[in-house]
């Protein structure tokens, strides 16, 4: 298959045109090959091919504000194989960038997608990273994203992870984020698991600077025999640090969900709250939609769609 055809197939699998708007930076990776790379001033992406993946640096120059979201696409079209992504991200002081990443494995039977990232968000810099996974209907994917993040003074780090369409397979997310003075951390995961999917999330936020802020959100739905184990830890060790941990899980059929919000405060002037709710679909919500003529299954789907939106 030609490079162009591969790019087209990857974009088709995420339901997007491969013609991105003019001035949009993008990098397209298939397994361990960089198929396309388009950069804009202020953004530098260098990639080195590894036997089983890619090692890349992603740098936004100090003071640069990347106007349009940068599009990253990590794809793997074969049924089997390993894709290891090693990312070094440096959003330099006063820089701003928003990244939209798609990870697509539409034909996976036995695919491993391993991401190992170190991320630095500079002083007064802003880094927003949205990652959507598109998997096939049969699972067959093991996704293991790990990231270590430092957010410098007045920096903002926001990440959203979404896997709603297709089977999860096995997922093991580990994020460890440290926020310095006046920094802001916001991490959200929205995942829907079915059949024998296994979802494990271990997100840790350390608010080590004065007035640092942090929010960890997990919205998970598991059905059939799927399992979810969600651990969100937020610690505050500096004066006036503020944080919140929120975990909501909907459990249907024989699925099992476990949520462990851990909050730790080491300064009496800091404050962290948490909220965790696990249960079946609310019966009043269900009956409301059924009284509008939706079947029970349609009503459950709509409620879960709302929770994960």
């Amino acid at each position, binding site marked *: 298959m030609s490079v162009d055809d591969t790019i087209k197939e990857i974009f088709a699998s995420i339901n997007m045109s491969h013609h991105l708007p003019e001035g949009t930076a993008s990098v397209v990776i298939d397994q361990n090959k960089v198929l396309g790379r388009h950069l804009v001033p202020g953004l530098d992406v260098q990639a080195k091919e590894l036997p089983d993946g890619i090692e890349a640096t992603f740098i936004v120059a100090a003071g640069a504000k990347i106007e349009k979201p940068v599009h990253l696409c990590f794809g793997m079209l074969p049924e089997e194989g390993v894709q290891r992504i090693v990312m070094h991200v440096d959003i330099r002081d006063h820089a701003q960038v928003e990244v939209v990443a798609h990870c697509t494995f539409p034909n996976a039977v036995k695919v491993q997608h391993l991401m190992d990232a170190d991320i630095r968000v500079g002083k007064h810099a802003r880094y927003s990273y949205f990652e959507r996974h598109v998997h096939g209907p049969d699972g067959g994917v093991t996704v293991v994203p790990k990231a270590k993040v430092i957010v410098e003074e007045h920096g903002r780090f926001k990440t959203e992870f979404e896997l709603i369409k297709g089977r999860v397979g096995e997922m093991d997310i580990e994020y460890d984020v440290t926020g310095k003075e006046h920094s802001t951390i916001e991490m959200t995961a929205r995942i829907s698991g079915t059949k024998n999917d296994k979802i494990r999330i271990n997100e840790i936020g350390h608010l080590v600077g004065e007035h640092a802020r942090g929010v960890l959100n997990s919205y998970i739905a598991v059905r059939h025999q799927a399992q979810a184990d969600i651990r969100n830890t937020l610690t505050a060790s500096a004066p006036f640090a503020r944080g919140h941990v929120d975990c909501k899980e909907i459990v249907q059929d024989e699925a099992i969900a476990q949520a462990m919000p851990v909050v730790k405060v080491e300064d009496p002037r800091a404050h962290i709250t948490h909220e965790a709710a696990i249960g079946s679909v609310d019966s009043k919500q269900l009956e409301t939609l059924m009284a509008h*003529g939706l079947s029970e299954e349609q009503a459950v789907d709509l409620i879960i769609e*709302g929770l994960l939106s």
Partner: protein
Amino acid sequence: MGILETKELTLAFNGSRILDGLSIDFWGGHVHAIIGPNGAGKSTLASTIMGLAGYRDHGGDILFEGKSIKALGIDERARLGITLGWQEPARFEGLTCEKFIRSAAKDKSMDRAREAMWQVGLDPDSYLKRAVDRTLSGGERKRVELASILALEPKLVLLDEPDSGIDVEALERIFAAIRLLKEKGSTVLLITHSMAVLRQAEHAFLICRGRLIDKGDADKIGMHFDRQCLPCDHPNIPLENE
């Protein structure tokens, strides 16, 4: 024959009879009210007609358009044309007003969703993308629910305490929506203990302790309720099973 008929309807919880042989015939195309003091069995009647969980194990029968619906689930009753507006509408985290309305609507177009929002006095540009969650007040959720009912175009609407948690201005919108439902051919059954709501109805049924006490013109039943029920100091405790 009416659109809905309850025949000797009985329902007991923990040995206490909440509905006690209730037989009522509701004529189609009208606005009816079920009025009675707190604990009379009004909301229980609405929940039983809709077939909600916990209200299915009743005696007697419910006929809709002449056929028993006793064995039917909520969604099956809804697909026949029956729907319910709750006293306290549910909150749906993340589910937008637009999706909520369009999932129910007979005409699923965006234009119809917008029109339904206008019909309850909510600006679609401000509300359709908002979630039906805690960021909406109880009154706003109630109007969104009513918008979804208007878009659903049901044959029979059960509205449980439509004035609950509603300010005066919003209440006028709700009353206008009730009139609109009637104009469009729906039969409306208002569950209330409010005289203001009762005045929206043409016919009324006064119930107490799960029994029908009086029926007739809404004004007449209103006077009965106002003069004899509101001052009534007998405890409205459901009857014990004998």
